[in-house]
């Protein structure tokens, strides 16, 4: 143990105060434990009783995967918890992680009529977790594979989109080979979601549950464009699903981005998620996060929970324009994170190659609605700067596309309503496709829809 984290001599803490082990083991346990503890049966029954069992319920329409929410809640109310879980999982095989990570406040719970009635929606996410946790804990696999079709489908990417697609295809009787570039499956559930939202190795437990259906061969450490080629997959399989995710991050475009202390938020969160002992992870005493999305929130809150003293998110527009939901913004603020709006970074300042300060200018919208400097600004002392200004799709692994190009749209893969790409035999879904919501739940829906479309195509061609 070093000296108490924030009580070092003035000389030592002036710059470059990036340290691990700022907290006690108990504090790490508390800070990275379940942020929303599960409902027990008594609480679940009280909450379930609040559901009005609406006709053609608005919450169902608001769920990207169309889960029969009143249906599963009614089953919870009668202690038919298995039935409830199956109702969820038959629409969304990642119902367990979605129960934990979905921004329900802008989806099902916003649509809940209890919001209109009393400003307090039914806790749909928590109830969904209650039901799905029960089934997972009991190890019940309620789904069966249909008779084998003899068809083989390649899925690239073992995130929610790819595995949802694989699971549905396997249920429909097809054999699926899943290729994953990283060493573990799960995609952002494993590498990207804030640690306190998916505790106890849930991502891996859920993947194991999904795979327990059978018929899905998972190969990790196989990257598209390196170990496997799209052309080869199209040749060797009856269909291909691309669930590639987003491989790159935006840069600030400022001098000094390579300076020590300047970090890419996505990479840092990934390291944090993979760190078995959070105490070993260094974090700055003063942390600045630039961005307005959930990655910015997650980087900021997790820094705070690692023991950072001052954490500030700076976003170039107002709270309404942040892609992080109001709920997430509030969560950051109540976690002790400050949020400054209408300012953008103009300079990264360091000493001896070590970050010391970030300078900002105020911003505003000009009459045409463009973001411009507003004159004036401020500087924030910083030991760490997280860049969280968006992720981008990296198309290079798709190949040179000389023969038959795969059409991109807004820098991502273009797909139709069935998640078909412009390339025959190739479907795509999740964060790598254009027009998506960048949500786990919409990735699952993409995978499911693609699987149904692939199944129709294969049966038609049979």
């Amino acid at each position, binding site marked *: 143990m070093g000296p108490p984290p924030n009580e070092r001599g003035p000389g030592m803490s002036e710059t470059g105060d990036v340290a691990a082990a700022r907290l006690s083991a108990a504090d790490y346990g508390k800070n990275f434990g379940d942020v929303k503890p599960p409902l027990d049966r008594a609480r679940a029954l*009280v909450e379930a009783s609040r559901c*009005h069992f*609406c*006709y*053609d319920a*608005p919450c169902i329409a608001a769920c990207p995967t169309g889960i029969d929410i009143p249906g599963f809640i009614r089953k919870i109310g009668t202690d038919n918890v298995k039935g409830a879980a199956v109702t969820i999982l038959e629409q969304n095989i990642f119902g367990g992680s979605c129960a934990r990570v979905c921004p329900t406040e802008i989806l099902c719970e916003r649509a809940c*009529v209890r919001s*209109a*009635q009393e400003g307090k929606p039914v806790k749909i996410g928590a109830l969904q977790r209650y039901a799905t946790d029960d089934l997972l804990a009991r190890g019940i696999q309620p789904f069966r594979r249909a008779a084998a079709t003899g068809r083989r489908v390649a899925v690239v990417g073992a995130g929610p989109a790819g595995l949802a697609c694989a699971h549905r295809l396997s249920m429909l009787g097809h054999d699926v080979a899943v290729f994953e570039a990283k060493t573990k499956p799960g995609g952002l559930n494993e590498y990207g979601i804030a640690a306190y939202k998916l505790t106890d190795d849930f991502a891996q437990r859920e993947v194991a549950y999904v795979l327990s259906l059978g018929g899905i061969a998972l190969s990790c450490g196989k990257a598209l464009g390196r170990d496997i080629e799209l052309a080869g997959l199209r040749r060797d399989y009856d269909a291909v699903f691309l669930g590639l995710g987003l491989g790159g991050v935006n840069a600030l475009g400022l001098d000094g981005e390579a300076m020590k202390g300047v970090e890419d938020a996505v990479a840092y969160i990934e390291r944090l998620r993979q760190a078995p002992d959070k105490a070993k992870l260094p974090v700055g005493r003063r942390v600045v996060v630039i961005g307005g999305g959930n990655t910015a929130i997650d980087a900021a809150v997790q820094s705070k929970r690692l023991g950072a003293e001052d954490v500030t998110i700076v976003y170039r527009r107002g709270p309404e324009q942040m892609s992080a939901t109001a709920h997430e913004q509030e969560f950051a603020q109540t976690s002790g994170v400050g949020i400054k709006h209408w300012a953008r970074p103009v300079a990264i300042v360091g000493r001896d190659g070590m970050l010391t300060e970030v300078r900002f200018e105020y911003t505003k919208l000009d009459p045409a609605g463009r973001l411009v400097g507003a004159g004036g600004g401020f500087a924030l002392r910083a030991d760490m700067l997280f860049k969280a200004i968006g992720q981008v799709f990296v198309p290079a692994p798709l190949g040179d596309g000389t023969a038959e190009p795969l059409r991109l749209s807004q820098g991502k893969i273009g797909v139709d309503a069935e998640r078909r790409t412009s390339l025959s035999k190739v479907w795509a879904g999740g964060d790598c496709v254009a027009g998506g919501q960048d949500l786990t739940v919409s990735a699952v829906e993409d995978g499911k829809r693609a699987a149904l479309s692939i199944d129709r195509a294969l049966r038609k061609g049979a």
Partner: protein
Amino acid sequence: MADLRCSFAGIKSPNPFWLASAPPTDKEYNVVRAFKAGWGGAVWKTLGEAGPPVVNVTSRYGAIEVGGQRMVGFNNIELITDRPLEVNLREIKQVKRDWPDRALVVSLMVPCAEDAWKTILAVVEDTGCDGVELNFGCPHGMSERGMGSAVGQVPEYIEMVTRWCKQHTRMPVLVKLTPNVTNILGPARAARRGGADAVSLINTVNSITNVDLDRMAPMPTVDGKGTHGGYCGPAVKPIALFMVAEIARDPECAGMPISGIGGIATWRDAAEYLALGAGSVQVCTAAMHYGFKIVDDMIDGLGNWMDEKGHGDLSAIVGRAVPNLTDWQHLNLNYQLVARIDQAKCIKCGLCHIACEDTSHQAIRDIRADGQRRFEVIDAECVGCNLCMHACPVPGCIDMVEVKTGKPHLDWTRHPNNLLRKAAE
């Protein structure tokens, strides 16, 4: 504040709220706590003959829960008091002495023999209590021994025992009736013929509340077996209100005081009983659920409501709704209601629509426009049945409003479709 003093069959109490004969009134300790809490009276838990007391089982209660609301319906398989007669008598005497302003009635159940009744009446009268209530209602256990509802189901027995009691005591005699009969008027009229000073009803309803699906046994379960019990609580109120009102409007029972019992938990419940002819009310399940403190709101709430409505005392409300209870054949067939949905209050749950669409008259349209849900009544299809109003979870969102038909009152007795109609006068 309105005068809540109650005078019932010659028994006086500071308010009409009595505790019914049941576990809450089995001992001095409980009854004193109740009187301290403000209850106007109590009917002491049923006494039996001198000698070895009855023996009770465990468990004793069953209950149903609806949507998280506990004890909506409640049942018991407990017998009459299992304490020695002399202990009860001593305590009754003490309580009456200490609480002279409260109504203290003693419930009795002994075998159907005149001597048995004569004997118990003498010792009970000696306590100074205000009256007796003959337990002809208890539907479980004691009925197997020829008492309780076994008597209450035979009007001739009711009349006979009531007559004996009137002969052998000066105390007011209340006859407590069982609802486990096809027509409550038979027992009520028998009580009157026997000279009863009043009737009290209902006692509990034959019931099995639930089945333990693991043990495959009715609940409450006693060592793997169950037996039917007596059902009470909020769920039985409609049944009891009907029976009370039937007696209240029966010419043969005219003027006979009625103590209303069954699912009374609030002042509003009590006011409804009073309006349908009860002169006092008795409460048990609500007290067993929440404790004696509930009487505070009952007293307060009833008084405030009476003040608001300008009712000075109980006589202003007792029986006031009885003239409006009639037979179906006298209801006005030309009266027309339709449902009105207050769109400002509507939360778009669609329960009105699906209830009407699936199970009634397809009179509520499901409209989707501009991404919004909207539910509208089709007046021409609406029969004014009230279903949507009851299904709606938002109070006051759906109103039933009268449509002026301009037609005169017309009931079934004169309706053209009635082949047995009366000729027009």
